[in-house]
């Protein structure tokens, strides 16, 4: 028996969320039948050492499908490769991180392999009586305890909720040559536009987010400096991306990105319920707002009432000095 884990990478680096997925699989194996944890990497952009290092998180073996066409995240092709890898390894469980790639791949693999899929999973399953997972629902406003009722299972975990295991020994890397058909590449990726070198918002451990209280895009410098000091990602409220002050992929909330960092810093954001829906899975929230009555203070752990233009530079300075 084995547990398969889908690995995602960004510019040749394994994503933190994939390290979390491997750690989850290792814990799952330890919890039940000591299944072998097998990681699956697609494309040839990740160096061999980095794949071996997945052993630290609990993988004993890494399958690498080195076909160059897999360097781009073509969803159907990925789904086909993952389904074939499940077959080859006899895996009864697939673990992956919820993401723009993971979600559609998981959905297709579920149908192709007859597996049941649970998304937004936030903890290890309860296996005493069946297989019951805890998933986040209603955009973080509640959880459901859901029983997964077929033999094969796919678990898509919420980012930043699983502790990363670091004490395993290196994994062995094996070439995996799945069969791919032209039909798997019906969707052509003609171009990708991506910020390079930035901390990715959904993966970030700290997020610095700005709202309409920042008055204009020209004032983002101070938030970027704070973010850089903390090695944080930058986010924003919906009106800010609607007005084009910031790119859409930074928009946090009900209709944007849902984040679950250790610390979410909200600057000049009122705290509308739709914004909170995207941030309420954060472990800690710091709100900075000039209005002491701003609803964000009810959802926050730490608060500063004051003018962002005065408070943010002071905060950055205090962090640098500490």
């Amino acid at each position, binding site marked *: 028996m084995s547990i398969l884990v889908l690995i995602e990478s*960004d510019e040749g680096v394994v994503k933190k969320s994939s390290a979390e997925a491997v750690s989850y699989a290792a814990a799952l194996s330890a919890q039940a039948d000591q299944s072998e944890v097998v990681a699956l990497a697609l494309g040839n952009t990740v160096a061999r050492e980095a794949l071996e290092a997945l052993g630290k998180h609990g993988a004993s073996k890494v399958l690498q499908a080195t076909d160059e066409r897999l360097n781009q995240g073509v*969803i*159907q092709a990925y789904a086909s490769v993952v389904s074939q890898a499940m077959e080859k390894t006899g895996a009864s469980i697939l673990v992956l991180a919820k993401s*723009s*790639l993971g*979600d*559609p*791949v998981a*959905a*297709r693999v*579920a*149908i*192709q392999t007859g597996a049941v*899929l649970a*998304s*937004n999973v936030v903890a290890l399953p309860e296996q005493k009586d069946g297989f*019951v997972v805890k*998933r986040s629902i*209603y*955009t*973080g*406003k*509640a959880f*459901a*305890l*859901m*029983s997964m*009722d077929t033999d094969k299972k796919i678990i898509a975990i919420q980012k930043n909720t699983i502790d990363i295991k670091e004490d395993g020994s290196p994994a062995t890397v094996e070439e995996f040559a799945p069969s791919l058909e032209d039909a798997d590449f019906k969707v*052509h*990726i003609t*171009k*990708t*536009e*991506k910020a390079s070198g930035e901390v*990715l*918002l*959904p*993966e970030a*451990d700290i997020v610095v987010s700005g709202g309409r209280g920042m008055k204009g895009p020209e004032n983002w410098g101070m938030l970027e400096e704070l973010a850089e000091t903390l*090695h944080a990602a930058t986010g924003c409220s919906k009106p800010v991306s*609607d007005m084009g002050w910031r*790119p*859409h*992929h930074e928009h946090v909330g*009900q209709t944007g990105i849902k984040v679950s960092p250790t*610390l979410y810093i909200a600057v000049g954001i009122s705290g509308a319920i739709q914004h909170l829906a995207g941030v309420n899975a954060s472990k800690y929230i*710091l*709100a900075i707002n000039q209005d002491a009555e701003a609803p964000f203070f009810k959802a926050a*752990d*730490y*608060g*500063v*009432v004051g*003018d962002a233009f005065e*408070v943010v530079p*002071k*905060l950055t*300075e*205090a*962090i640098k000095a500490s």
Partner: protein
Amino acid sequence: MKILVCITHVPDTTSKISFTDDNTKLDTNGVQFIIGPYDDYALARAVELKEAHNGSIILLNVGGAETEPTIRKGLAIGADEAIRVNAEPTDAFFVAQQIANVVKEGSYDLILMGRESIDYNGGQVHGMVGALVGMPSVSPVMRLEIEGDTAKVEREIEGGKEFLEVKLPFIAGCQEPIAEWKIPNMRGIMMARKKPLQVIEPASQEKQTHTLRYVLPPAKGKVKMFAPDQMDELVRALRNEANAF
């Protein structure tokens, strides 16, 4: 162009979520139900495409009779007819199968869904339907243009976007800024009453999950306030209590 738009019937985004019956059922008391915001984007783009390409829009919802006002609202916004599959949408696989059955029988050129439903936030149904009917699926889609038999699509990815091309028919899970939400006008509301709404029974009953119980997150403690000249104290708290850095 024949467009199928799949809509969910979900609590308004401002709803307070609570449960009844020993935490096994959503407490719908005082909850207002709406078309899922992402589905609303899908419908808005469908209306634009219908006007540009002389098309028609069929709405689809898998749900009980209580969803009909929501479906009528979709008809008022600009859909031409609607299908309701009469069943509780409690399992993504079950819902995907019902949608796949409708897709197989309808020869649609385009199937638009939302990026995700805001109750279960699965983001699963489009991929499942795609696999069931053998169609490409793309989500989340921020821009969608149709040129002949090809769709040009922008898909959001972490930290940026992808530009894609795919031949029709295909499935798109939509999100902003694909179109502006549309508000029904009086004429639309009047016309919606007469538009056909067909109710069909589910084609299969197979489910793969069942929910045992719901849990609410623990209540937040009280916020700790710091004055603008107490930044050193704040940094200490973030470092030592929150272990944030």
